């Protein structure tokens, strides 16, 4: 019986063999990261082995303001100088591709924001064993539900929904407790030469860039296991 997708990318699944460690650098405000996450989950669901996943921070656009009053098209046109018609077409294509992965992207509702605090919240969640749950919650909140993931209040609400202590998260966000962890992730990405996301590192040595097809992820998992047992 196939394992539910939401359960396969777990901290460690029940396989008796040593899990393959997969470190994933990604951002919340990254449409390919959510799609890549789904494709990776499908790969793991169909793969017979143990996988341990850890998400790492990557800020795609550090200069993004926390608050932007305007539509997605407005933002891309003003900040990137893109033709609004081209943006409309691109968003439509991206929405279709997301739907193919079972994701309901809603760019009309999307709220642009800086994701630095969200990354700190993800480190808080990791420290409390709920990083996978919060990662999924934040991506869905941003792309599917038009939630504002750049503010402390909203992050606390979303974190509480996955079982985290909202008061503790608020204190840590306001104190910047996990800011060094975010910086360390970004520094590690730089050391690896990671320029874009999503980016997957298997077993600390094999790098996979982008929202690859599930079969590609499975091939890499097979290779890691084969080389470990050689």
């Amino acid at each position, binding site marked *: 019986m196939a394992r539910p997708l939401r359960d396969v990318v777990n901290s460690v699944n029940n396989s008796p063999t040593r899990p393959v460690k997969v470190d994933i650098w990604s*951002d919340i*405000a*990254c*449409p*390919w*990261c959510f*799609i*890549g996450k789904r494709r990776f989950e499908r790969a793991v669901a169909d793969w017979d082995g143990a996988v341990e996943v850890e998400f790492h921070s990557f800020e*795609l*656009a550090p200069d*993004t303001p926390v608050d932007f009053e305007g539509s*997605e098209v407005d*933002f*891309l046109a003003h*900040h*990137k100088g*893109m033709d609004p018609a*081209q*943006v409309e*077409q*691109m*968003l439509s*294509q*991206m929405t279709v*591709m997301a739907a193919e992965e079972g994701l309901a992207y809603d*760019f009309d509702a*999307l709220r*642009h924001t800086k994701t630095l605090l969200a990354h700190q919240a993800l480190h808080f969640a990791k420290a409390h064993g709920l990083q996978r749950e919060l990662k999924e919650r934040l991506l869905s909140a941003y792309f599917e539900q038009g939630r504002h993931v750049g503010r402390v209040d909203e992050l606390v609400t979303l974190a509480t929904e996955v079982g985290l202590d909202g008061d503790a998260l608020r204190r840590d966000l306001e104190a910047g407790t996990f800011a060094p962890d975010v910086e360390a992730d970004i520094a*590690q990405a730089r*050391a*690896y*030469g990671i*320029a*874009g*996301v*999503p*980016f997957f*590192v298997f077993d*600390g*040595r*094999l*790098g*996979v*860039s*982008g*929202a*690859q*097809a599930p079969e*590609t992820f499975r091939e*890499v998992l097979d*290779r890691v296991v084969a080389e470990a047992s050689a």
Partner: protein
Amino acid sequence: MTDPLEIVGADEAPVCVDGVCAVPPTTDGATEEQGSGDL
């Protein structure tokens, strides 16, 4: 010191770089590559 990674997988997999998220060519033969920023 970080050991260098061996890069594997398809080169053309979609990725977001510097706030720009390229949409791959469509399957109907169109070849345009479009950018999206900061999605």
